[in-house]
């Protein structure tokens, strides 16, 4: 693959993630961008292009949300575009920005991800429903949680995974999030708390799920030569990958996310990674539900199929384990403002790889990490490999 310029992340910022923000989406975006620029002493005049990611207009009830967010996203009179690939948006956004710089078109690109889900009443669930097929699925009265329950059940069945092994992911991530200053639902919970929580759609229980959130994140990208003028410690985006499986989701075996594996292989190959299990120091897979972290560890080829629950039980994926998974606290602990949640993982890689993650810092001077997001009708994987 021909990449004209190596791309670095040189700055990052994020708002608090919260259930209801007083700020509008524009105001949240402004906060995140301001922080990202300040973190690398850049002015908006130094930014040549802007890439924005945000989920469906229906959450906000604002049509042309990309345009609506433009001014807060720092895109006034700049080349600007918006991407949206469902839950995969957050990790696709840095890829979207990467095109701008890797192609040689621009030396700098500001990447912004924003989500304000709380405006939709009584629950954004109503807006989610329209992802189901309008002819043959919506008449059955589906609920978004169904697709997770159906996928989770298939995954558990195929590998004979007990619910307890899945719930331990929620315990770990909510605890990790206690050290994240932006976290929405960080909490020390026990395995029993998860297992005793309300059954919504078996096997999915209340505490298996990430919350409804508002928030924004931003990063600044720069080409290699420019990045070295901005900072002594750039973090490189060395591999990007994305892949979509069929929308006919009832025609696939849901136990393994093949599209995530395809996206991971693309990103690893670009980054020169031949053995991810050995060469990845820590990972931020997408964890909107606890089983998804396990599913995605397998999709990211960080372990064998069906092995992720075992590694979790053995403590391998703890922040001080051999392969820390979601040291940020993930969506289960930090929160899930869709597009911003994926970008939170990119911010975490940036801070961790610079040794700036504070109490969350992964030991052993991590050099290579992978972040991933997932979405649409259980069909997209977006993957970014970063190196210090």
């Amino acid at each position, binding site marked *: 693959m021909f990449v004209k310029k190596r791309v670095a992340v040189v700055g990052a910022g994020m708002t608090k993630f919260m259930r209801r923000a007083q700020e509008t989406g524009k105001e949240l975006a402004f906060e995140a961008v301001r922080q990202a620029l300040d973190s690398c002493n850049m002015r908006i005049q130094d930014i040549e292009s802007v890439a924005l990611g945000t989920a469906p207009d229906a959450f906000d009830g604002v049509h042309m949300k990309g345009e609506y967010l433009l001014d807060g996203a720092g895109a006034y009179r700049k080349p600007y575009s918006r991407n949206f690939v469902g839950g995969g948006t957050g990790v696709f956004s840095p890829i979207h920005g990467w095109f701008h710089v890797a192609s040689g078109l621009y030396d700098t690109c500001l990447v912004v991800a924003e989500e304000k889900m709380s405006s939709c009443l009584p629950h954004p669930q109503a807006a989610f429903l329209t992802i189901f097929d309008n002819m043959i*699925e919506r008449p059955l009265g589906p609920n978004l949680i169904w697709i997770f329950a*159906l996928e989770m059940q298939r995954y558990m069945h195929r590998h004979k995974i007990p619910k307890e092994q899945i719930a331990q992911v929620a315990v770990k991530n909510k605890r990790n999030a206690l050290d994240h200053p932006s976290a929405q639902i960080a909490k020390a919970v026990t395995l029993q708390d998860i297992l005793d929580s309300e059954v*919504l*759609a078996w096997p999915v229980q209340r505490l298996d799920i990430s919350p409804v959130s508002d928030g924004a994140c931003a990063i600044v990208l720069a080409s290699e030569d420019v990045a070295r003028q901005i900072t002594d410690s750039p973090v490189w985006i060395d591999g990007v990958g994305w892949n979509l499986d069929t929308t006919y989701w009832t025609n696939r075996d849901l136990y393994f996310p093949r599209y995530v594996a395809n996206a991971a292989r693309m990103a690893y190959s670009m980054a020169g990674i031949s053995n991810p299990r050995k060469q990845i120091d820590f990972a931020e897979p997408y964890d909107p539900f606890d089983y998804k972290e396990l599913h995605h560890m397998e999709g990211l080829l960080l372990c064998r199929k069906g092995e992720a629950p075992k590694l979790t039980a053995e403590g391998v994926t703890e922040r001080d384990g051999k392969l820390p998974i979601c040291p940020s606290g993930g969506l289960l602990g930090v929160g899930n403002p869709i597009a911003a949640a994926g970008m939170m993982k990119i911010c975490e890689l940036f801070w961790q790889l610079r040794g700036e993650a504070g109490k969350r810092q992964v030991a052993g001077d991590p050099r290579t990490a992978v972040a991933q997001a997932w979405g649409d009708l259980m069909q997209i994987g977006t993957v970014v490999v970063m190196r210090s």
Partner: protein
Amino acid sequence: MGTALKEEDIERQKVLTVAYQPKAKYAWAAGIAIGRFLEGLKAGEILGTRCEHCGRVAVPPRIFCEWCFKSSDSWVKLPDTGIVNTFSISYITADTTRVKTPIIPAVIGIDSTTNAGFLHLIGEVKPEDVRIDMRVKAVWLDPSQRKGSITDIKYFTPLK
């Protein structure tokens, strides 16, 4: 960093909000493939399509095979039996209202297809008795009540 509000801040109108309810209505064309599928359901039949290039039999039917990217205009009448590929026991409805009697959505793999199926419901069974790989059969609405909808099948029930 952002200012978090509490639920009661909204309820007690301690913060200003502006409300709006969209009123958009749609009349979707069912399309060539799903149109015929729905006609089939009205007649009490499950129809699939076969790709003459790769031989795959798919349901829901489509006029193209996305694997081969060729037209697949060969129609197949499928049995109304299959297996439960996966299922859930749901205590929430579409708008998250809680229900005491659970709804059991499932992906039904339809017999005589190439690992293809569709979303439907399971009925006439205790939730705790539903299993993956269980054989099931469609329970149809009375012909006079059918209207060319996925709900012309009431649900699938375990084959005795």
